[in-house]
């Protein structure tokens, strides 16, 4: 029982990271039709930006972490907005070229991180001389039904829940949210109402960049390190989450992220335990994807057809 609880909460923590990445990917694809392969760079750069700022300040562990998170978030938003303005916007109405540009950016930005900071993982946050670099309460565990859960898992889950609630409210109650929801359904009809839908493109890229960077920072907490491959490895699962959840649907992404995180954790543990097979989690996720696509080719929450 305690193992199941631990796996479940760890899976939810992982699902929280997937959700933060997938929600932006899903909005960008839903609205603009761009499959953004550069999203992984937002994750990695967000994580490294957060780590970098902690190498330049000395403060309490809490203060450093908050500063790092805020810095990573802003960095991700600016990077996202810049990429949209400089690379995506000039290719408006040329979706294939847009996707190719994001692939190129993913490769170039990945190489850039590698070139600047090298291949070795960095301890996050950077607090030289300190015994532990995270706030101690985060490393402590809470016992639930006999399972000792590292407290940082709750932080990751809580952040994702807050983001889910915030994004949902934003999409429902603001004018930009209304335009985005309508644009996901039928972009050209939005322009036919006199709305310059391109303005929302920069916005969703900035939001996507910020949320992916936030996932990068949280992954730094989850793994206690940042490394150059972080974005790529998380992005693959986020893509799967988007496909399972349905492009353009935040709720669908949330459900799918939880499913993928849990399936991955359970399969990894039980396959190793019972079958002596490691790495089964990724295979199980593929089966989950295949199963959903067979039963519901449009994903759990397809775009509203009309």
């Amino acid at each position, binding site marked *: 029982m305690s193992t199941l609880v631990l796996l479940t909460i760890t899976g939810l923590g992982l699902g929280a990271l997937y959700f933060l990445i997938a929600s932006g990917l899903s909005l960008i694809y839903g609205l603009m039709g761009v499959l953004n392969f550069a999203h992984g760079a937002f994750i990695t750069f967000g994580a490294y930006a957060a780590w970098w700022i902690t190498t330049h300040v000395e403060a309490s562990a809490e203060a450093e972490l908050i500063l790092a998170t805020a810095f990573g978030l802003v960095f991700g938003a600016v990077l996202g907005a810049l990429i949209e303005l400089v690379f995506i916007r000039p290719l408006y109405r040329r979706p294939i070229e847009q996707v190719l540009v994001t692939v190129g950016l993913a490769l170039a930005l990945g190489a850039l991180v590698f070139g600047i900071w090298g291949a070795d993982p960095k301890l996050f946050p950077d607090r030289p001389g300190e015994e532990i670099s995270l706030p101690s309460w985060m490393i402590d565990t809470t016992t639930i039904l006999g399972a000792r859960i590292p407290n940082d898992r709750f932080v990751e889950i809580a952040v994702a829940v807050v983001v889910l609630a915030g994004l949902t409210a934003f999409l429902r109650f603001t004018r930009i949210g209304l335009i985005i*929801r309508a644009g996901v*359904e039928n972009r050209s009809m939005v322009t036919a109402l006199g709305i310059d839908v391109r303005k929302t493109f920069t916005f969703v890229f900035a939001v996507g960049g910020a949320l992916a960077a936030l996932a990068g920072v949280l992954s730094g907490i989850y793994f206690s390190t940042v490394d150059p491959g972080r974005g790529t490895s998380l992005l693959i699962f986020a893509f799967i989450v988007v496909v399972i959840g349905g492009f353009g649907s935040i709720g669908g992404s949330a459900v799918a992220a939880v499913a993928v995180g849990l399936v991955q954790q359970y399969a990894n543990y039980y396959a190793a335990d019972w079958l002596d097979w490691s790495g089964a989690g990724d295979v199980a996720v593929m089966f989950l994807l295949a199963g959903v696509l067979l039963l519901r080719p449009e994903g759990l929450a397809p775009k509203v057809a009309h």
Partner: protein
Amino acid sequence: MSTATALDVNDLHVYLGESHVLQGVSFSVAKGGVTALLGRNGVGKTTTLRALMGLVPRSRGSVEVQGENVTRLPTHAIVRRGIGYVPEDRDVFAGLTVEENLRLSERGGNGRYDLVYDLFPELRERGRQRAGTLSGGQQQMVAIARALLNDNDLLLIDEPTKGLAPLLVTEVAVALERAAELSTILLVEQNLGVAKRVAEHAVVLDGGRVVYEGAAGELLSNPERVRELLGVGGAGH
């Protein structure tokens, strides 16, 4: 600049894929009243409206709205010159509520809700209902209401009575008459009864060009001309 025309279309050419759908369409729409844009099925009426809106690429020709050349403007900028568009397939946002559909289309924040709720009281009652769950007729009301909500000079309306029950056809015709008191209307309408009732002028397309431009009554009360130009009663095209 003040001109007598709401819309001037000059030598408009549009290709859709391989096919040369509009081959030099030219016509004018006088200010005020309803001009019917007629023609056989598949002749390019919808394409003409979409080309005026900048929704399909135009390979040649010009479009002037109230004397201003809008040919090179993006769709949203053309619309902001005071145009309302009711597309053929209605294109309401299915996942948005009726009220959200209207709010989205409101430009400048003083939507004429009194007018649209007066014309279509059902829309007020169904404000919180998702547009995707409405009947075809109700969706058409939403589509028309979106265009009437703003103080537009010109309305482009594509087959508003298509597929509607007779009672609804009348309701839509009444709404069109009311709208015509407020704006100039270019109306694509296959229901010739409705066209005859509301339109003063007519423009007929055939073979990618305009083949008739003149009074609507004169054309529509001449069965021979109607059969010749619109193929009604004949085999179509």
